[in-house]
């Protein structure tokens, strides 16, 4: 059991490093703004049912006498073909997009990290097989594979997540493997090996914790792409199903009406853009701060 002082000793320099990076990151106004946007989106996602002006409009309830109304003070984003308040639905869509993206990124990390670590630590035949497998997956566009998999699994939000996980896991396995290979050669791992620590323990206790930092960076850059992919799958009818107010699905349903109801397709699209742009700017900023080539103090 480590004492608290010991913990501080290890943690303090890392905390200082983190503070410095945060300072560099926030010095760029655009990046600071996108960080604020993401925080706001997270708050919206958490409190969506309470801040939506018409919480009953989020799912099934219909209100047909108010159908396809243009934006007004009563309905900020107008209404859809069933008279539901678009503002409430787009607001609630934040929760769906953020949660599904986080789940998809998290599960694919759970596949990527151990595989990369195992390949990098063990080397040899296992390494060869895992890396050739990732080569195959990396050799074609992920959206295509997601579409094919989602099509075969049948349309639903869960299957869309599964499709994204299957087609996204290889993207950073290579990166983590590279990390693992370099950690394998470090003194403390050799020391552990020499006193007979089992391989599995070395992978999970020594190699994995040291690959976390680059993984977090990549994950933050992935979220925007995953949100876009989920929206695209839903747009094709392969993701969320009605009456879920998923942004891609909202845009897809709007196609019947949007020529006479511009607000129907416009607002969910803007929501996607704001969210994805904020995440991408953050990802770009983190990379610039952590990359020694572009880090300017």
């Amino acid at each position, binding site marked *: 059991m480590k004492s608290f002082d010991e913990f501080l000793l290890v943690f303090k320099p890392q905390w200082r490093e983190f503070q410095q990076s945060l300072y560099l990151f926030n010095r760029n106004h*655009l990046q600071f703004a996108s960080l604020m946007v993401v925080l706001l989106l997270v708050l919206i996602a958490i409190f969506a049912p309470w801040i939506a002006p018409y919480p009953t409009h989020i799912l099934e309830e219909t209100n047909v006498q108010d159908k396809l109304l243009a934006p007004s003070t009563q309905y900020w984003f107008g209404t859809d073909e069933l008279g539901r308040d678009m503002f409430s639905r787009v607001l609630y869509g934040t929760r769906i997009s953020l949660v599904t993206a986080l789940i998809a990124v998290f599960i694919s990390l759970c596949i990527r990290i151990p595989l990369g670590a195992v390949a990098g630590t063990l080397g040899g035949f296992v390494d060869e097989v895992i890396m*050739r*497998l990732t*080569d*195959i997956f990396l*050799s*074609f*566009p992920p*959206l*295509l*594979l997601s*579409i*094919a*998999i989602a*099509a*075969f*699994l*049948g349309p639903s939000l869960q299957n869309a997540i599964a499709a994204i996980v299957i087609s996204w896991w290889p993207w950073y396995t290579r990166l983590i493997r590279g990390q693992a290979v370099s950690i394998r050669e470090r003194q403390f791992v050799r020391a552990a090996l020499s006193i007979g620590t089992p391989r599995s323990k070395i992978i999970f206790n020594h190699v994995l914790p040291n690959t976390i930092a680059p993984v977090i960076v990549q994950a933050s850059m992935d979220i*925007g792409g995953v949100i*876009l992919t989920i*929206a*695209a799958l839903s*747009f*094709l*009818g*392969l993701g969320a199903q009605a009456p879920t107010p998923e942004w*891609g699905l909202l*845009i897809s349903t*709007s*196609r019947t009406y*949007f*020529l006479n109801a*511009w607000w129907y*397709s*416009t607002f*969910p*699209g803007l929501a*996607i*853009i704001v969210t*994805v*742009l904020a995440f*991408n*700017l953050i990802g*770009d900023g983190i990379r610039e701060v952590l990359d020694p080539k572009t880090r300017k103090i």
Partner: protein
Amino acid sequence: MIKFILRRLMLGVIVLFGVVVITFVIARVVPSDPAAKWVGPRATPEQIAKATVDLGLDQPVYVQFWKYLAALAQGDLGYSLRTHQPILSELEATIPPTLELVTLSTLAAVIAGIPLGVVSAQKKDQTLDHLSRLFSIGVVSLPTFWIGLVLQLIFFRLLDILPMGGQLSMGIQLTMDVPTVTGFITVDSLLAGNLEVFFDALKHLVLPGFTIAVYPVGLVARMTRSALLEIMNEDYITAARSYGLPETRVVWSYALKNSLGPTATVVALSIGFTLVNTFLTESIFAWPGIGNYIVSAVVGLDYPAIIGVTIFSTISYVILNLAADIIVATDPRVRV
């Protein structure tokens, strides 16, 4: 060099095999009933049973897979479950319109993206550069399908100057006599000297072409910028400047030439992404291409068609990747 290409081609074949295995396994693992799909919704159980035997679905999966591979080796992709037409001939009809779109947007990416990147590199850290950086991150954040709808709203509904979708106007399509040579309507109509068809086809190309081009333009601009910035620090650029050559000439003819390698790689790779982006764009603009084809195949669970399109896209992607690698390898500074 030849050894390098051969090695990459071998890897391409392995990748293709992997893709076939993956799609085949997924298609068979999923509980769907292709035989029932084949005979239609009102078939009797006997008809379904007969179709199961006809399609070879009663045999063990490894036999089915072997047969599929054997047919594939001869270029036979099987039959569509919906139309009962050979997949290959359906692909032959849908690929040219898609290629027409992809070619146009790639041209746009090169014509607009490279100058944008050059200007942005010249004005590094000035307003124009910030705008261009925001633009290139912005376009990666845009949902392609949404841009299409917005363009339709503006140019069809609001301004009424461009058609909403399709490849040709209905009237022209019915009376058109343009022999198919390349499969690109714009090129074919020019070859036939039929300007009316040409301009009509061009008008229909604008919106979907623009929708697809947005992404590669941003990508190419970004790549050109960073490649150019790296090269502008080289000694030979300083030398050229010290001779008193005009800055425009230094940038556009001395520096740009050496930054084209990475840019060409990005162009080759972005064609692959563009190809998949057409899946979303074509369904919005009712473009009779491969994207529309796979979307309707997905909706109808037509798995031979889905596998067919996946294989075609993968082949294109592998070839484009290879092309990108070869472009890099032709640079004498790179050792393969």
